[in-house]
């Protein structure tokens, strides 16, 4: 695993074409729907073989403290996964013995603020988005996870695959008892 995550670079900063922007926005919505439906096979099909899925933990620090809490991969991350690790997590659900996942959690992912940029690679695009993920479980367990994402999506055979995702959640203390969710 490389030591710094580079989802921000390289950037041309130029907006992608209307056509690409539309296709990628639709792709994000499709991905959200699959996650809502717990269609994890469908979700994994949207992930590239060289995926890096990263959600760093954020501490509350004074502004003068310039510690890199975001891109330094040697620091703690709730997710710092390649495709195999994601599949390992999902395999727990398939065992039929993940008792805590039954009854099922009810999910809604809302994706907004989508911006699509070209990158130095003709087939790769940087996609910014914000998300609101709502979970409700059992009788009255509920929580909301809200944050920003920066993705790299790669065009392959007329569809797009997720290559990198950085998720910046806004919590310091997680107000929920687990993270059985992908964002």
């Amino acid at each position: 695993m490389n030591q710094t995550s580079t989802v921000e670079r390289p950037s041309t900063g130029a907006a992608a074409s209307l056509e690409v922007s539309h296709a990628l926005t639709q792709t994000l919505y499709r991905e959200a729907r699959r996650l809502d439906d717990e269609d994890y096979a469908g979700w994994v099909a949207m992930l590239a073989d060289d995926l890096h899925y990263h959600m760093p933990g954020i501490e509350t620090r004074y502004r003068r403290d310039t510690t890199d809490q975001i891109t330094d991969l040697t620091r703690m991350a709730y997710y710092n996964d390649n495709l195999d690790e994601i599949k390992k997590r999902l395999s727990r659900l398939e065992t039929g013995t993940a008792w805590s996942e039954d009854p099922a959690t009810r999910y809604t992912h809302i994706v907004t603020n989508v911006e699509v940029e070209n990158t130095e690679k003709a087939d790769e695009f940087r996609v910014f988005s914000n998300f609101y993920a709502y979970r409700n479980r059992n009788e009255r367990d509920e929580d909301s996870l809200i944050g920003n994402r920066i993705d790299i999506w790669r065009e392959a055979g007329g569809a797009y695959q997720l290559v990198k995702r950085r998720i910046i959640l806004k919590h310091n203390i997680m107000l929920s008892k687990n993270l059985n969710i992908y964002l």
Partner: protein
Amino acid sequence: MDVASLIDTSTGRQSRSIYSSDAVYRQELERVFGRCWLFLAHISQIPRPNDFFRTYMGEDDVIVIRQKDGAVKAFLNTCTHRGNRICRADRGNARSFTCNYHGWSFAPDGALAGVPLENEAYFGELDRSKFGLVPVAQVAEYKGLIFGCFDPAAPSLDDYLGDAKFYLDVWLDALPGGTALVGETQKMVLNTNWKLPVENVCGDGYHLGWAHAGAMMAVQSMDLSGLSVGNSSANLDGGLSVAGLNGHMALTSLDGVSGYAFYPEPKPMLDYLEANRPTVTERLGKTRGEQLWGSQINITIFPNLQFLPGLNWFRVYHPKGPGQIEQWTWAMVENDMPENIKATILDNQCLTFGLAGLFDNDDGDNLAACTEQSRGWRTAQMDVYTNMALGRSGAREGFPGDIAAGLVSEHNQRYFYRRWQEHMQASSWSDVPTYNLNPLGSREAVNA
């Protein structure tokens, strides 16, 4: 409060009210958290002068600060003027702490260093020496772990830890480079009484093969005392439940490798163990070097610190009322480990335990529901039991403590509640018994 009626160690009974009663909780803040040595920080979290780390002792907010001379002090994180919180960051480095309310500022040694309008508005009559930050009565370090205690009459940290140090050293003193906690603090809120996660980790190997069956199928790569999915083949010779050490506990396998059983690719870790085992054996002796170092060990320091060399998570539970805790987790490493091993540990700790961890996904619901089911009018009058393997414990050659066989037993839980009851019944430290059963070299049978 009739504490005697709440726990019966001889039958393994606990009243459910101890998980839900406000009166019990207020008394715990006084007699458990107000009296015991509590983990504050690891030295690796405040390496330089003026480094600070913010934590809790019970519900009291505390700042731990490395001093210029290298010593460590801890203070209540509250302004002596009107009580505001003076430090709002989780950690950092600060030459002073200035209160956001009226601007009083405090030096890292706690002294009140500056008061706006001191001469004009206080007419120079404020005795600053009486308004320094309030220190935690005792602060001490054991091999990298910094503890604090509110009770000036408490025994020394050394005596408090007692023979549990035999087990603590399996991590803290295995290699000359010492240890570190790495990564940001992973904090989460759990709606559980604080004793339930402690009980779960201090002795409950029983739940592993059941509650965590799905997680085990996903990541288990090696045998762990026969514990596997569905608890079908637990091997009671493969581990020890160790208690009778002033309320501290260890739950350990004995093969020297199964600490890494939940690493999907354990090879680099096993190579590390093999390369360093001779050094560890030389430092800690054959029993610990060959049987404990590298094994799956759950260590509990009463009341709320737990860490697991191997799985490599280190955790403290801060109570927030009878029905809620904050659970703080870090990954733990030995400083002599190569960087790639440290990185693997941090990754695997987050994959298995902690907020997004496959195992912790299972525990949260169970602990929360056990708490909820102690709160009803009827359920609060009911009991629960830790009565597995009652009376089946004794001495073991080479290991201090009163010991039961296997990772599946409720022996440690009974000692946890016994210690809790001893503290809750005692009005001061002088009424709290000290026991380090079966110290090394002594072989008398123990009557727990």
